[in-house]
């Protein structure tokens, strides 16, 4: 067997107050696709940043092509031949496709920028990937999927020996995913090493040769994909089997509480119609950028709709602000917990009372006791683990922060609870707790919309599933008729609703 091209030995990384990686090992071989598997928060992204020179390891060695190396800067890693497709938005929206691809390694001699050759190379690269994108377009004018493809093109523009792909398929359609697989195979044949990060097992099993599993910042195990089963890997990844993950209880589904008719927002989503009953959990599945979050934002009054009607208990309602949505009994647990869910530099008490400050204190004067009582009640209900209720939210782990968000909305006593990716980036235990909690609330008559990109979650929790693709609901399935294949096909636009019906 060939020698590994990249070896990570005993890599440890501290951040103030937290140990993100603890003596990690990883060996990547040329001509192989290596899967890095772990839940969100397992330390995968930190490791990627270390391999690409964005972070420096606190301890441990990196061996590249047999020599010990350090990458003090992203450029050094790039020059050495390590390219990455980052998960985070790493584009320059105001600049052109060409420049996004070449930023940091512009063509041209001694600091001069040779636009003509850059444009030509961009055109060639895009042609090679069979992408119909103008090299002169500004990134902000491209769709989400196009941006991801540019991001992939960018990584390929460096003639790298190691290509790191951090969840590259999250926004791609089926056709684009197939194209990506083709590219991966070409790279493999050319003897490149690929590190493929994903938590979608079908993907991992169709393109990867070997795997390494992380959990809680620690190395768990590695092996050959051909020698392993999904179950084995899942067990390593979560430290337990999956059955307990979706403790779905039978809830009594009664009257329709929410009805949405032909909701449209130009360029974002079109003719969205669905209904939601008390006690029901309605799943919303789709690719990143399919328009699910945007529909929920309109329902919660963050954005304005262009047309369509929203009925609650049969009455048409106007929701022009989140405050108005709250009056109708709607609560939204937003997609971006860090930036939209909690206020990082505020205490848990202040976070939890925030949505209700006006109704809790009708004369505008704060009363500590009322707030404390509210926090204690809902904080303990959600079993939030914190040193006290007065610590700032940013001292909590992701899972506990999410519990704070749920507690703050539960405290408003909602009738309809919209959860947008409620378990993104939180640990397994909290994930299971959130699931069982949602299930219990449904039993008590709460109507729930569950927006999720995780197919097992949607399948495991929902009574019905709406699938969106490019701003349209392409299919709706009941719990019994839903299966992963049907849902994926609908989500990637392979079946229009007519074909399904």
């Amino acid at each position, binding site marked *: 067997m060939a020698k590994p091209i990249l070896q990570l030995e005993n890599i440890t990384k501290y951040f103030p107050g937290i140990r993100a990686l603890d003596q990690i090992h990883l060996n990547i071989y040329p001509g192989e696709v290596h899967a890095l598997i772990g839940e969100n928060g397992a330390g995968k992204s930190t490791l990627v940043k270390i391999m690409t020179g964005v972070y420096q390891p606190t301890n441990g060695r990196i061996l590249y092509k047999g020599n010990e190396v350090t990458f003090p800067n992203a450029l050094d890693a790039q020059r050495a031949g390590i390219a990455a497709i*980052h998960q985070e*938005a*790493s584009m320059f929206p*105001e600049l052109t496709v060409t*420049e996004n691809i070449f930023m*940091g390694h512009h063509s041209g001699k001694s600091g001069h920028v040779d636009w003509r050759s850059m444009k030509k190379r961009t055109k060639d690269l895009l042609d090679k990937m069979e992408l119909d994108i103008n090299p002169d377009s500004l990134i902000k004018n491209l769709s989400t999927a196009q941006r991801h493809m540019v991001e992939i093109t960018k990584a390929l523009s460096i003639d790298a020996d190691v290509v790191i792909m951090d969840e590259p398929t999250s926004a791609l359609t089926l056709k684009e995913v197939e194209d990506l697989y083709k590219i991966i195979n070409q790279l493999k044949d050319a003897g490149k090493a690929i590190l493929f990060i994903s938590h979608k097992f079908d993907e991992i099993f169709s393109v990867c040769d070997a795997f390494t599993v992380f959990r809680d910042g620690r190395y768990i195990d590695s092996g050959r994909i051909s020698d392993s089963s999904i179950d084995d890997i899942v067990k390593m990844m979560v430290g337990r089997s999956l059955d307990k993950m979706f403790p779905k209880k039978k809830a009594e589904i009664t009257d329709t509480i929410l009805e949405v008719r032909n909701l449209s927002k*130009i360029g974002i989503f079109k003719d969205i119609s669905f209904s939601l009953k008390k006690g029901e959990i309605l799943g919303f599945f789709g690719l990143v950028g399919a328009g699910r979050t945007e529909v929920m934002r309109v329902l919660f009054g963050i954005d304005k709709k262009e047309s369509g009607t929203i009925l609650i208990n049969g009455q048409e309602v106007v929701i022009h602000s989140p405050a108005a949505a709250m009056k109708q009994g709607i609560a939204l647990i937003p997609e971006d917990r860090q930036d939209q869910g909690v206020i990082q530099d505020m205490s848990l008490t202040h976070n939890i009372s925030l949505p209700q400050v006006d109704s809790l204190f009708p004369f505008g004067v704060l009363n500590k006791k009322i707030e404390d009582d509210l926090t204690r009640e809902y904080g303990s209900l959600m079993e939030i683990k914190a040193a006290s209720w007065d610590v700032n939210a940013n001292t909590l782990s992701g899972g506990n922060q999410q519990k704070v968000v749920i507690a703050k909305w539960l405290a408003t006593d909602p009738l309809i609870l919209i959860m947008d990716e409620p378990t993104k980036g939180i640990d397994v235990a909290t994930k299971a707790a959130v699931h069982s909690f949602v299930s219990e609330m449904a039993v008590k008559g709460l109507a729930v919309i569950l927006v999720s990109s995780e197919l097992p979650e949607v399948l495991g929790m929902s009574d019905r599933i709406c699938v969106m693709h490019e*701003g349209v609901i392409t299919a709706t399935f009941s719990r019994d008729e839903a299966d992963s294949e049907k849902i994926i096909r609908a989500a990637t636009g392979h079946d229009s609703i007519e074909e399904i019906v």
Partner: protein
Amino acid sequence: MRELIKKREFTLLLLIAVMLMLIVTQAPSFVSPENILRIINDTSILIMVSIGQFMVILTGGIDLSLASIIGFSGMAASMLNQYFPDLPVILILFAGMGIGTFLGLINGVLIAFGKVPPIITTLGTMSIFRGFTFVMSKGQWVTAHEMTESYMNIPHGSFLGLSNLIWAGVIVSLVMYYFMKYVRTGREIYAIGGNKVAALFVGVKENKINIIVYSLVGLLSGLAGVMWTARYAAAVNETAIGFELFTVAACVLGGVSIAGGSGTVVGVILGALFLGILTNALPVVHLSPFYQLGLQGVVILGAMIINTLSEKRNEKKLLNRRLQ
């Protein structure tokens, strides 16, 4: 062609043309070559310094101290000339630029390594640099008869029929245009303003860019300081007070996004020219010079509102094209 029309620079050019036409109906001589040259001469300093401010705004910062840098380096250069009249003026010119660069570097270091937000840093150094100007001059002025003829000739001398000041403006404009479009470092300034995280991922060093940008503003302000004091044949302690706001105005007029990441050198030059024409047109159309400030406020606000509204319309158009 359609691409050209869509560009903001084109809109601004059109606006300038319309303004000129309106002025011509009142005073045909306004567009005579001599007068046009006079306006460009008057605006050259604003153009140079605004390009500096543009780079700073592009990175998402702001430089409130550049007027104080103009004042300090202008005073320093004038005093050099006063006390060492035999010193070649070219050396004084370089000294002025060097002093400006140094002051800019102080800003850059505080911002890059001290992690002090640009607005605070430059608000502070605005006072500090201005205070040291007074300390250095002991509150005295350097007046025309204390300056040598050759010093005052730095901006006034001419070459090929254009004043040195215009040449300076033209050279700075061309160099900076080239720098921002065809030099890697120039493009990296766009990267920092556009998305700091992404810039980090591709190895663009934020600290390095900040140091370069603030030093460059210092350099341009130093140059402007020499030009300013020599042109008006006086170095007073209050030189250029409030000028930082005009440079921001020129940028905003030129379509530079105050949040950073977008804008062009050409736009900024046009924005500065627009302000220059406006100032020069007031007496011609029989408005008292006291109207200048207010009119500027109206024009800048108007330009900003139009920019904002047209951007919103563009976004909507874009959305309409998607998902048909």
